[in-house]
């Protein structure tokens, strides 16, 4: 689904990301871990064509993302609060995203029903603009909006941060569900090793812009990761 070749990004001669080769097959749940500055967000930004690669390219379903926009209809993402429109209510935001992804209002309403638990009555009909919601609730709205319209590729940057424990558990369920019952390719970055090993079938560790580990998740993965980061 996604293939990276000779991708690098540098700012003023300092290389912040350098991935020679990385293939993410369709339907995989892919986890990206690494310390601050490892290049996770840079990688996602390159994948979404928000920054220009210094060399190499990323292909999303055989489309070079920096050359064509054809990947946009089947890719969706939630990176940070700048993916929310602060002056909209949650409903208006969902309908707007729905509009962009060819979903009618009724489609969106139907879709949102399955996430009532996840929203925990804190998102819909709250009579508040998104900018007035708490960080955690903003995140909930953003994550669910990224799932509207059955995208083939979903990219979530640090989805577990700022969420309360109950919501974290519910989010894990949603992601696992998506992974097992649909063909969605899911890319997640996280600082929480436990969560990421639980929901991702494959984990890649980035360090200073390079891939240092590429693991198919198993019972031993969490220990291996903890050992690695406890250096």
């Amino acid at each position, binding site marked *: 689904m996604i293939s990276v070749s000779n991708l690098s990004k540098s700012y003023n001669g300092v290389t912040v990301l350098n991935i020679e080769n990385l293939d993410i097959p369709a339907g995989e749940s892919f986890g990206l871990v690494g310390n601050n500055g490892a290049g996770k967000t840079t990688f996602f930004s390159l994948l*979404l*064509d*928000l*920054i*220009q690669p210094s060399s190499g390219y990323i292909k999303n379903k055989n489309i070079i993302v920096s050359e064509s926009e054809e990947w*946009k*209809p089947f*890719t*969706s*993402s939630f*990176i*940070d609060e*700048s*993916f*929310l*429109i*602060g*002056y*909209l*209510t949650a*409903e*208006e935001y969902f309908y*707007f*995203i729905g*509009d*962009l*992804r060819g979903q009618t209002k009724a489609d969106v309403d139907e879709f949102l029903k399955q996430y009532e638990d996840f929203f925990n009555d804190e998102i819909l009909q709250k*009579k*508040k*603009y998104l*900018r*007035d919601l708490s960080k955690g609730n903003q995140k909930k709205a953003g994550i669910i909006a990224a799932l509207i319209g059955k995208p083939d590729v979903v990219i979530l940057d640090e989805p577990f941060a700022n969420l309360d424990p109950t919501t974290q558990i519910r989010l894990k369920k949603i992601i696992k569900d998506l992974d097992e019952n649909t063909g969605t390719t899911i890319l997640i970055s996280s600082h929480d090793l436990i969560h990421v090993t639980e929901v991702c079938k494959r984990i890649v560790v980035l360090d200073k812009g390079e891939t240092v580990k590429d693991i198919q998740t198993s019972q031993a993965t969490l220990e291996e990761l903890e050992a690695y980061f406890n250096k």
Partner: protein
Amino acid sequence: MFKRFIALEWKQFSRSSYFQKGIAIKILLALGALYFIGMAAFMGVAGYFGIQKFMPDKDPITVVNNFVIYWFLADMVFRYFLQQLPVLNIKPYMVIPIKRSTVIHFLLGKTSVSFFNFLPMFFFLPFSITSLVNGDYAVINVVAWFFSMLFFTLSINYLNFLLNKNNKVFYGILTVLVAAGLLQYYQVYSITEPAGYFFNTIYEKPYAVIIPLLLMVMLYRFNFKFVRKDFYLDGAISKETKEVHTQELTWLNRFGKVAPFLKNDVRMIIRNKRPKQVLFMSFLFLFYGLIFYPQESYQDMPAFLAFASMFVTGGFLMSFGQLVPSWDSEYYKLLMSQNIPYREYLKSKWSLMVVAVVISFILSTPYIYFGWDIFGMIAAGALFNMGLNSFITLYGGVLNQVPMELNVKAKAFSNTQGFNPTQLLIALPKIFGPMLIFYLPYKFINFETGIICLAVSGVLGLAFTNFFLNQIEKVYQKQKYKTIAAFSEKK
């Protein structure tokens, strides 16, 4: 303690991103400020002699006193819409060991050094001095009068703080003003006469300066109490969260593919402080013609009238349009990674601008009073705005990559948006285009041909809408990464 506060303020000022934009912008800003100061000073001196010349039988200070109530009322309205209150900045001081009263005094003191307080002084001071030098006035009276004006100005400053923070005060004042306006309009009771009498009395009895002084102190104390009582995160410094309702705006669906964007744009304008401010400013542009049309001297310079006519209907177009991608800077990454064709996005903005021109044009019908020539000019100017200015403005917008905080009022003079050389170059055709297109045919043929040429240029522009939008789209595409990077910078 105050010294430290001031040091922090200075750092905030000198390190803010707009101030580090290079020498050219600083010079431009300084020139802009000097221009306003100069204008005010000129008005002060010229005001004195002007009144003497045109109303030789009247006393200049009395004349000013008779009309100063209008100035104060206008000042109040302007401040309400334009003056930014520095309220949110006190959050970091809440938990460190500084007395609350010190922080509040500083906060209120800070509002006093606003541009809005200095500007009137640049009129009253030169006016007072000119009066003293040229007229036969008692020094003590003029000095006391000057200070009265200063205290009134500061009173309005503190009143504005309350107006912004306290709904009761806001609606109270609003009711009083509307009532007074209605009484005046239906000639039941004229408020301006007693107001003039009041200000003249203050001038005649120098000790009466105590009245505005007391008023100011009272308002200050009131503010102090108000903030002191509510000095909590969820109190006076909290952002207001009003209960809001989802607005479907289904009537916009008829615009087809552009509809989702149009809906958002409409919501953006009505739900954020900054765009509301722009809306208010563009409303003022409607009155721009009043400066030019009544004056004899401009009747022989129709190029200037063409210039003014373009502004009458172009206020929103220019003030909104020049900030086009900036309006969406807070969520630009979303727009760039979602399934959004740039064209629809641009077209939505363009449609808004065109609709605004049409509305302004309808509102400008009273200008028929100045004759059909003038109104014809306004109509031609409106067409020029729709057909050409709209595209030029959109084109210029993308070069203006300044992130914007939507729900924060712009500070007077801290807004450098639009102050870069390219932007200025792009402003030239907007201003001189209509003048030239009108003036050349006017000079060589006649007035009507000038108007027709101006109108036809606009219609031609409209005919090539698709072509222009395509070109602009290309520029936006090219600037994409630069724009994203600029918008994700800290404000």
